[in-house]
């Protein structure tokens, strides 16, 4: 299945893009997607533990099972205010 991955803040600088697509096996999890992203963009490995992950507009845990077409967002800790 294909999912979309969006990068925010300085993650865009590390990947050189704001959006990418990922091919994943059926019933892959958000954690699987994160691993696949790090394989493609090794610069994100360093921030692996502090990376926040959302599907659509909601935060989700690594166990979250993805569906075809899901929009994943990966970003560093937020800093509003």
């Amino acid at each position, binding site marked *: 299945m294909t999912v979309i991955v*969006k990068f*925010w*803040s*300085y993650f865009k600088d590390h990947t050189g893009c704001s959006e990418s697509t990922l091919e994943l096996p059926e019933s892959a999890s958000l954690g699987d997607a994160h691993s696949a992203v790090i394989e493609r963009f090794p610069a994100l490995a360093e921030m692996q533990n502090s990376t*926040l992950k*959302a599907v*659509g*507009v*909601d*935060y989700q845990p690594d166990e979250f099972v993805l569906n075809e077409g899901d929009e994943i*967002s990966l*970003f*560093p800790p*937020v*800093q*509003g*205010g």
Partner: protein
Amino acid sequence: MKTQLTITPEPIDETALNAERELSDGMGAVVVFQGVVRAQEGTASISAIDYEAFDEMACHQFELIFEEIDRQWPVESVRLVHRVGVVPVNAPSLWVEIIAPHRAVAFAACQFLIDAMKQRVPIWKKPVGGASSTSSQKFST
């Protein structure tokens, strides 16, 4: 509970926001918080902060926080404006207003909202015009 949420590149118009305030006759407390861009960000002197928001998710996360406030406290109204794009030093990036029957509720809800925002709402900062001690060293050698 009434809510009003604005994420905008425009300067925050405090006078207009105050003019639009509505409170019923049971309300005894209005708390307004403004977060203002400071000239120091860590060790760097900056001229502005460039705020980036994931708008759709930021709105959704703010709405979730508003719902938590509504469940926890008898707040009549929450209004919040977060500016995005380049916000110069000394200008507000955040304006929050809580209207409640009593002071303790208004303060508690306002602080909860800001704390929750800083943990969950996808907005990020990038310093502008920074001369950090590191980068100025580059020019001094």
